[in-house]
């Protein structure tokens, strides 16, 4: 089991964001989390990444209780890509990627950390940007830098909060192919995606969220049944047949 979340609730005071969530994400698979804006996806991902405290509920990652991990152990297991990152100082791309190695470094990074950084930049295809100031990059390029940072960390599970949000078409395809490749190599990936069609083509398993609840698609039916998506997104949806599957369009 990659992730096992049981009876998780979360909120700020009166404002409850997650209601008694129970879910599983299989190890070695690409699980996609879908839902409307404000449905609690990002909060859920942050709690699963150990960045917000899990007060009410229980979370297991690769069979281990997340509440009992030290921060170094957690960083060795879980990589997390946030939705927004506002840079302040014009660090070079390679310097930003190198910070992914923090849990392996005592004072300053060593040769191995630099090698892992090079490898990560190479995998993501941003080696040509390495000497550029991070602040001068486009939103999509920054996103790729942060992905490389997660890879340099060498985690076993990766949580991505809208990894495609600023990427152009070709970079989207490239990042998705990279994710697939990581999953084939045994990593567990859970990602929030916005486009059901992308999710449909690349994802292995699907989770739907609405107003802080997990929506269970009826087992007998295909999760891509238009009625499930209509319920999740509160939008009328039409399906179009494509290569033996179906694409969805909001109308």
């Amino acid at each position, binding site marked *: 089991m990659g992730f096992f979340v049981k009876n998780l609730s979360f909120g700020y005071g009166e404002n409850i964001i997650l209601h008694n969530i129970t879910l599983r994400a299989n190890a070695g698979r690409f699980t996609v989390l879908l839902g409307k804006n404000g449905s609690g996806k990002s909060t859920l991902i942050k709690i699963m990444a150990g960045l917000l405290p899990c007060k009410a509920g229980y979370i297991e990652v690769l069979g281990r209780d997340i509440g009992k991990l030290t921060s170094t152990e957690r960083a060795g297991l879980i990589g997390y890509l946030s939705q927004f990152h506002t840079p302040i100082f014009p660090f070079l791309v390679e310097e930003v990627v190198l*910070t*992914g190695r923090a849990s392996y470094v005592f004072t300053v990074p060593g040769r191995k950390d630099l090698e892992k950084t090079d490898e990560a930049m190479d995998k993501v295809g941003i080696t040509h940007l390495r000497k550029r100031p991070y602040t001068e990059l486009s939103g999509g390029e920054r996103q790729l830098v942060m992905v490389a940072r997660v890879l340099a960390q060498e985690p076993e599970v990766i949580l991505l909060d809208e990894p495609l949000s600023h990427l152009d078409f070709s970079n989207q395809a490239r990042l998705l192919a990279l994710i697939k490749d990581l999953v084939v190599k045994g990593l567990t990936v859970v990602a929030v995606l916005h486009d059901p069609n992308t999710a449909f083509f690349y994802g292995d398993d699907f989770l739907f969220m609405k107003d802080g609840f997990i929506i269970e698609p009826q087992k007998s039916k295909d999760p891509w049944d238009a009625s499930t998506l209509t319920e999740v997104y509160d939008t009328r949806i039409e399906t179009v047949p494509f290569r033996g599957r179906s694409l969805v369009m909001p109308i």
Partner: protein
Amino acid sequence: MKPFFKQVIFYALPLPLIVVSLFVGPSNVVNTSDIIDWLMRSISFSPVPDAQNKQMVEAIVLGVRLPRVLLAFSIGSALTVSGNSFQALFRNPLVSPDILGLSSGAAFGAAIALSFPLLPLQPMAFVFGLLAVGLSYFLALTRKGVSTVSLILGGIIVSGIFTALLTMVQFLTDPFKLQTIVHWTMGNLHNASWSKVRSSALPILFGIAWLFVMRWRMNVIALGDEETKAVGLNPEKEKLLILIPATFIASASVAVAGMIGMVGLAVPHMVRMMTGPDNTKTQPVSIAFGGSFLLIVDNFSRTITSFEIPIGIFTTLIGGPFFIYLLKKSLMVCREV
């Protein structure tokens, strides 16, 4: 070749500068040739013809100038390293010991210590310096974090409160002590002595060494709390590990030399302009260049006029316009307010 050349300049600059600074001063009894003569004879252990002159040279060079040069250098390093660390820690290029209220807090603590003979100077400066930074931070803290502008506003408020308290101490204390306090708040090095060097050297060396060890982690912290936590460091713990030594060295400087304004803000920027923001480079350069900077300014302050201008006035006059320039520039660059 070029980066190598740069490094040589930064790291080789301090030593010759310190030696040259020993020759600089308003004394018209001892001139440069006397000092060179004395130096050559001391090195070669040859007898000195004029014993009285030798005594005079030694008194001025070893008793007056050397402690002052060392004090100027160490305080310049301390304020620069402290300012650079605060900027990384708060992810805010506009903060410094002065802006965060640290200087006025430490000055207030030190003024109390100067007024009441039983209280120790260094610890009082440190405690109130830390209190001031803590207050500025908590004034600015919201659930969404700390914004650039609210931190500066917090610092201005805290700074104002401690300046008012400092004025109150000045008002209540007796006239003789008042003069000491006022002179000292202006920030000056003219009464530098070996005892001041001794009292500040240890805390400053220790704090700088600590922050030097933290240099790479400051890069991680500077990316933000969530990004720090995601890679396995505890941002709250790391911040304290930077905040405490940074406050320690800045308040140790305030305790011996008063408020030397703007060095902690402007010099880290000059350093970053030369090295880029990577703190594994800025920390060592801050030590070498920060010390050299204050030493050069101090050399001017004690020679440019027949009377001595307090160095704090000098640095503020240079740093003030520089801060305005930075503020303008960052308001254009940073979208985050």
